């Protein structure tokens, strides 16, 4: 394997592992902040116990998110040095702003929150978790603006052999980054909702702390119900934007080969393994693809045959990931809707026992979504501007083999420990 492939695998491993912890941090921080706010405003001790119990799970998750985040910033320089030199003027500044504006706030006040229960007034302590929650989400916005530049480079001019900033406002109002944010945050809140529902269901089935877990369940349900719908809406608008800005990605998502107006969507479809067409293509719904992509049944949708072969993303992986995301994304509002019908008699909810097993599903949906975003952008690291193959650092294979193998071993070990601790504390219930 060459340095390019190893570096790509390492980037994927480091980023996806980090992203196991990010969505729960984003979503659960907000929900814990709401729990503590209710405690402060009503004085009801159950809410304090809720903030502490869910907060403990939040912290086990948060620790690994923080430490694996450093790898993410460093690996642009270590493994993608030519990319860093080429777009650092824009991309680097977004990361630096993220650190100063948001990450400092998040990391400083998490310490305040953990150690401050007895040392601060309840209001100030509650403020600490709000600062963590807001900062985490603001942090996400800057990171997605940075990623948005890779999907849809704006606000730059080619000068001195690199992309230089010439319109900062364009960079921070990049529709791609903002739409990704509006898709990602509801996804995180859906995930956090199902996380709370799953663990609460496990305890409700065992009659542990029924009042505590009923209240928790309802909060999780509220979040899952509202945001699983918003994530679909956000995804649709994001998809419309992709159709305009990244036609090759959209064509790969749908394995759509012939450019045509009134493009159909096939209910049964499977790309060929050789990446040159579809091996199965049946039951067309006329105009549906045009409608989904452009909100117009007669719109023209570019097919992969009109995109030069060297500019096409891997079709099969993009297509399957997209199907997986959409399938799961449809399941979440349905499941949340059914649970809502039983909200006042949760124990009679026939699907209650499935909820603990559903906890991994929003994670899988988010991974699938990011696979669409990142694999669908290939062969570009910055769409239309720089190819991934031109971005990699000039390293020795042995160096990357060492870092990749060590990283995988270390992360596997830490991942196992984290899951073990999560299960232990989730089962233990509140104090």
């Amino acid at each position, binding site marked *: 394997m060459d340095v390019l492939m190893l570096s790509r695998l390492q980037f994927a491993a480091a980023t996806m592992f980090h992203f196991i912890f990010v969505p729960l941090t984003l979503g659960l921080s907000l929900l814990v902040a709401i729990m503590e706010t209710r405690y402060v405003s009503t004085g009801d001790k159950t809410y304090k116990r809720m903030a502490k119990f869910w907060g403990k799970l939040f912290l*086990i998750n948060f620790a690994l998110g923080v430490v694996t985040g450093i790898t993410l*910033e*460093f690996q642009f320089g270590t*493994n993608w*040095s030519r990319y860093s030199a080429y777009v650092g003027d824009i991309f*680097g500044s977004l990361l630096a702003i*993220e650190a*100063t504006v948001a990450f400092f706030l998040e990391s400083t006040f998490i310490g305040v929150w953990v150690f401050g229960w*007895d040392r601060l007034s309840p209001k100030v302590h509650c403020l600490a978790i709000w600062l963590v929650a807001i900062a985490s989400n603001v942090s996400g916005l800057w990171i997605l603006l940075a990623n948005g530049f890779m999907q849809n480079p704006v606000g730059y001019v080619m000068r001195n052999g690199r992309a230089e900033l010439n319109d900062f406002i364009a960079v921070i109002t990049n529709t791609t980054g903002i739409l990704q944010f509006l898709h990602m945050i509801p996804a995180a809140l859906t995930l956090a909702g199902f996380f709370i529902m799953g663990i609460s269901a496990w305890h409700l089935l065992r009659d542990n702390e029924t009042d505590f877990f009923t209240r928790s369940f309802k909060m999780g349900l509220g979040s899952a119900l509202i945001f699983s719908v918003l994530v679909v809406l956000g995804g649709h608008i994001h998809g419309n934007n992709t159709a305009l800005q990244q036609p090759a990605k959209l064509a790969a998502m749908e394995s759509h080969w012939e450019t045509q107006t009134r493009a159909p969507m096939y209910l049964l479809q499977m790309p060929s393994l050789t990446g040159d067409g579809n091996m199965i293509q049946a039951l067309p719904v006329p105009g549906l693809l045009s409608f989904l992509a452009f909100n117009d049944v007669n719109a023209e949708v570019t097919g992969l045959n009109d995109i030069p072969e060297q500019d096409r993303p891997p079709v099969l992986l993009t297509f399957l990931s997209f199907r997986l995301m959409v399938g799961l994304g449809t399941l979440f509002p349905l499941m949340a809707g059914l649970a809502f019908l039983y909200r006042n008699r949760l124990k009679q909810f026939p699907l209650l026992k499935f909820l603990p097993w559903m906890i991994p599903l929003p994670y899988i949906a988010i991974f699938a979504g990011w696979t669409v975003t990142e694999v669908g952008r290939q062969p570009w690291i910055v769409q239309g501007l720089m190819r991934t193959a031109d971005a990699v650092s000039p390293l020795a294979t042995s*160096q990357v083999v060492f870092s990749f193998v060590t990283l995988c071993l270390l992360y596997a070990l830490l991942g196992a420990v984290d899951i073990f601790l999560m299960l232990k504390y989730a089962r233990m219930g509140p104090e």
Partner: protein
Amino acid sequence: MTLETIWFLLWGILWSVYFVLDGFDLGMGTLLPFIARNETEKRTIYNAAGPFWDGNEVWLLTAGGVTFAAFPAAYAAMFSGLYTALYLLLFALILRGVSFEFRSKVDSDAWRKAWDTCHFLGSFLPALLLGVAFANIFRGIALDANGVNQEGLLELLNPYGLLGGVVFVVMFVMHGSIWLAIKSSGPLHDRARTVAIKTWPIAVVGAVFFLVYTGLETMLFNNYMQNPLLFLVLIGAVLGLISVRSSLGSAKMWRAWAGSATFIAGVTMFGVIGLFPALLPSSLNAGWSMTIHNSASSPLTLKIMLGVALVMVPIVLAYQIWVYRTFSHKITQADLDYKEAY
């Protein structure tokens, strides 16, 4: 002063702040297996860093991020050039970070012992590696005309690089033992203070050796010869070091900590100012060095970033100082009995 020069100085200051703040955490972690005699003392050490370490570590991300944003070509050359050393640093910091959170989560001696080992390695190795890395930056690495380092990890472990590593470990251990003395009481406090007092002459000898070796091995003194006023930075570092000893003698621990912080920042800034205008000199050809002239971002980026830094850094400092004040108390049994403690 040009924008590039301002950013160069800010770059040095950010690294200095990182070393001053994370320096004491890393120093305490390095001391952990040698100074703590029982479980209570071990937990005192973890909790003495408890509310601070995470916020401290963000200064590393900011220093790295600013290198990326303000001098992308230097960031690219430095981070890919020091590849293996940086990954070792990252893995070590990851182990240290999780050891805080995970150690007290399972009631088992073997579990705690395993995380203590991680905590020690995750503190000692970063101290050493940061010293090795910065000594090599002061000395220059084998950058070719394309900014690619022609050497590997083993060449970084040259005598000057290793001396840099040792000096960093000693500085951080002294800094950490002073912090531990501030945060603890009883026998642990006394032992921490003794360690600080005993480390002091080693720091003096290390600093003298490092300074002499720097004169022989690097070009850092050229800037000082041209502008002797700059020697004030070095004098500041020396005064800081002297103040550590006199404050330790009179048991004024906060003053000793401030002296030690001045020393660490002074040593860092001494090197950074000596480097100017280079961020990463090439040992092969001075023309191939990464400098503020050939690696800086566009003026627009530097201006926007300066605006962000001038607004945000004082705010960050203000709330971090508030956090330090809020949690400046000595760790007591009550703190260790606290449910959320490490």
